[in-house]
């Protein structure tokens, strides 16, 4: 039988996925973004033949290599973790979800792996042009791999192009183009890659600021900052545009997530966006507590963001949980009822097939198909279970947005003083630039927390809750591997940071 499992085991498996995914994401955005900037530096070197640009390219390439290795190390576990910890998921959606992973391997990973060796070791082995070509191929390969894994993730948020096959008891792909070109996939990819470019720009700025403050490698630092600020500013604009699109898509396909990250309990027309607020972490859906200790809203902005037209309704958590007849919103309670019917009919259908009862099978199937869209809800016990952790989603979303608004101002300041030629005198700006990379990481982590915590309890939105997606493992087994990976990744992270710090302190000349 399909059944819900020991919640402790599921939560440890959740924690393990969160751990491995967040560790992986420490390294990936830097890889995705900095490859473009390195390719750009490398191009300038090949065009000008200037030794200074070569040194600069090699220096950033070295830091990239240190980061890339641990990105690869933390990445392999994610692919196989779908199988080890989420084997029911792997079976139920493997027909759709497996394809992008395999395609990622064929079209992207081999580009990265093959040309990575040329990029690093090709300085005196291949022609200058082929070497430069390889550097671009690494950038393209890395970002192509992001396309496919984000297509896979987007499909979990917005499962389009599929249908459930009762005979195999799994979801099967009906339209590949729908899966790949879904608007959620497009906005996810563009938002993720542009924010990665932003992060890489801040990485370069932070390290360059350290050199300026130390009075070392001034020329290289100034040049690096100039290119990184331009990249960063362009990336910021993209991040803003694609972020708006991402929020719009969430509103269309995951209204509960939107309500959670805005802390919106009662839906309304012309809903306001929280500009600043302190959320009440003890608030539970259905109780009378105020969701906020304090909040400042910009009137109408949430409606505009969610529906792109004023005067329309944005559903709140209560509307989605308990239903809202006036707005034609079916509540989770009713969906659960329909979902349980779907599960029961599926079992009846299977039984009838086994006993050769064709008529019974047809009747069960017809009723199953009617209730199929709510299949996932059938695994929930109470309507309140359909609500994700609101405070976490709210805080993560607002941290991301505030930081995303701050970064372009930082880039503008660096550009302005670079253009005026007085960057060296602006000690305050150099000091301000130092911690920027940490803030960029905070924004990235917050972004993924919004995306993944905000869609709980679903692995596949509305179709498959996390509790059913798990493998049949004991809590102890998952705990053991959780700590195995936690310890290993922490040691490797410390080693990575220590090596990185050493290389930065050695600097470009001697390195």
């Amino acid at each position, binding site marked *: 039988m399909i059944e819900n499992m020991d919640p402790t085991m599921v939560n440890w498996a959740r924690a393990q996925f969160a751990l491995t995914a967040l560790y992986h994401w420490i390294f990936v955005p830097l890889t995705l973004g900095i490859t473009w900037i390195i390719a750009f530096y490398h191009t300038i070197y090949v065009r000008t033949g200037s030794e200074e640009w070569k040194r600069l390219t090699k220096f950033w390439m070295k830091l990239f290599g240190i980061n890339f290795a641990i990105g690869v*190390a933390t990445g392999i576990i994610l692919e196989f973790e779908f199988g*080890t*910890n989420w*084997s029911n998921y792997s079976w139920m959606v493997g027909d759709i979800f*497996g394809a992008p992973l395999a395609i990622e391997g064929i079209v992207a990973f081999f580009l990265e792996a093959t040309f990575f060796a040329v990029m690093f070791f090709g300085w005196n082995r291949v022609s200058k042009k082929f070497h430069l070509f390889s550097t671009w191929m690494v950038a393209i390969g890395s970002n192509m791999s992001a396309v496919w894994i984000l297509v896979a993730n987007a499909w979990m948020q917005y499962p389009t192009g599929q249908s459930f096959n009762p005979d195999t008891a799994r979801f099967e792909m009906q339209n590949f183009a729908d899966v790949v070109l879904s608007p959620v996939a497009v906005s996810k990819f563009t938002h993720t890659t542009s924010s990665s470019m932003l992060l890489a720009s801040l990485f370069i700025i932070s390290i360059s600021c350290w050199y300026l403050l130390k009075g070392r490698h001034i020329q290289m630092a100034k040049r690096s900052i100039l290119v990184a600020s331009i990249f960063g500013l362009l990336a910021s604009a993209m991040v803003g545009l694609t972020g708006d699109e991402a929020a719009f898509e969430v509103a269309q396909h995951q209204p509960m997530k939107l309500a959670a990250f805005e802390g919106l309990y009662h839906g309304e027309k012309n809903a306001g966006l929280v500009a600043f607020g302190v959320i009440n972490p003890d608030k539970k859906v259905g109780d009378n507590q105020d969701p906020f200790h304090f909040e400042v809203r910009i009137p109408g902005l949430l409606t505009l963001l969610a529906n792109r037209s004023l005067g329309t309704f944005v559903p709140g958590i209560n509307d989605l949980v308990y239903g809202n007849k006036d707005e034609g919103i079916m509540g989770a309670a009713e969906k659960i009822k329909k979902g349980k019917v779907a599960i029961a009919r599926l079992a009846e259908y299977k039984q009838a097939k086994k006993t050769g009862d064709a008529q019974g099978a047809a009747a069960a199937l017809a009723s199953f198909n009617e209730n199929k869209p709510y299949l996932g809800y059938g695994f929930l016990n109470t309507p309140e279970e359909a609500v994700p952790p609101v405070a976490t989603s709210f805080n993560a979303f607002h941290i991301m947005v505030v930081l995303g608004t701050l970064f372009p101002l930082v880039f503008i300041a660096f550009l302005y003083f670079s253009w005026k030629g007085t960057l060296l005198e602006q000690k305050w700006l150099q000091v301000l630039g130092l911690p920027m990379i940490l803030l960029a990481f905070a924004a990235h982590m917050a972004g993924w927390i919004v995306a993944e915590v905000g869609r709980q309890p679903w692995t596949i939105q509305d179709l498959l809750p996390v509790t059913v997606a798990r493998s049949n493992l004991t809590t102890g087994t998952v705990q053991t591997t959780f700590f195995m990976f936690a310890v290993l990744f922490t040691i490797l992270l410390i080693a*990575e940071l220590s090596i990185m710090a050493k290389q930065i302190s050695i600097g470009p000349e001697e390195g």
Partner: protein
Amino acid sequence: MIANWINNAQYAQLQELWWFLCSVVGSLFLFLTFVQGGQTLLWQVAKTEEEKSLVINSLGRKWELTFTTLVLFGGALFAAFPKFYATSFGGAYWVWILILFSFIVQAVSYEYRKKPGNILGARVYEGFLFFNGSVGILLIGAAVGTFFTGSNFTLNEYNFVTWTSSLRGLEAAFSLFNLSVGLFLVFNARTLGALYLLNNIDFHGAGELEERLRTAVWTNFKLSLPFLGWVLIQILPMDGFGISDNGEIVRVTWKYLLNLVQVPALFLALVAGLALVVAGVLLTVRSRARCGIWSSGLGTVLFGLAVFGMAGFNNTAFYPSKVDLQSSLTIYNASSSIYTLQVMTWVALLIPFVLAYVAYVWWSMDSRKLRLDEVSGEGSAEVY
């Protein structure tokens, strides 16, 4: 013509095509385990820091290729045979976790081993590389062995897996047959590793390293033979897992021998594969050639194709269950839908293109052998 074939292919044809494609990727991985084999040779063949640097840097230019091929092998199995992916990874949990662990530690070791501030010290990273090349490959071999000896799982009517051994897959390593497959792969990888290094390094100033590598080729080849012999002696008369005419899984006497007889291509691949492995070794040891890796490498690929083919083709259950025969997985009941296989087949048309650029880059990077002065002293800034 290709479009026509893909659009009109029967479901079974696509399932067989995808078993073949997965077998190709898996077999290429077996060839590329020369990286892992080389990692375990480090202490034996490289006595000085310079020699170590030569070995590590030579392998270090290829490790990602092996790693990526393994990842693609996993991805292709997930996409084409999701029931296998779900059953094996979620069921034989510990064996896969340990294999993964060994590849995680490998991935950082080349880059971090010699870098100042690496916390753990070069020896630990070298230990990681050894662990990956020995335990990692041994367990992969044991997992491949279960294609023939079967595993301990049942599937319910929703195809959810229950593993019936508390060792969660590690029990595979306690079968003499599976262990022999694993040890054969370990020693074959070491043979290939030595052959690759002989081909990839310029031994001017490192003549002793060359002699040690030639000895290693011969020793490891000899060590691989008893395990290979045991595997062959066991597998041919073994009771296998066949699919009967009505689709049930049944025990079939001499099943794998029958597969070789009934599908001559498999027999040819097995014989030619083993002959080419031997030829590569003999060329290296007797004629002091440096190109042995190509012969033994191709031989390993053909051998791999024969093994995967014997496991999955000719109405054989490739992932049999020892405890519930009818839960066994075949390429027909474990695959993706016909639509997904068609989509994937379109994408697979890119594979020859990928192989071509990998080969081109390999050739253009390695046409000049790795010299001692490139990895030590002046001008050695970009090394592992």
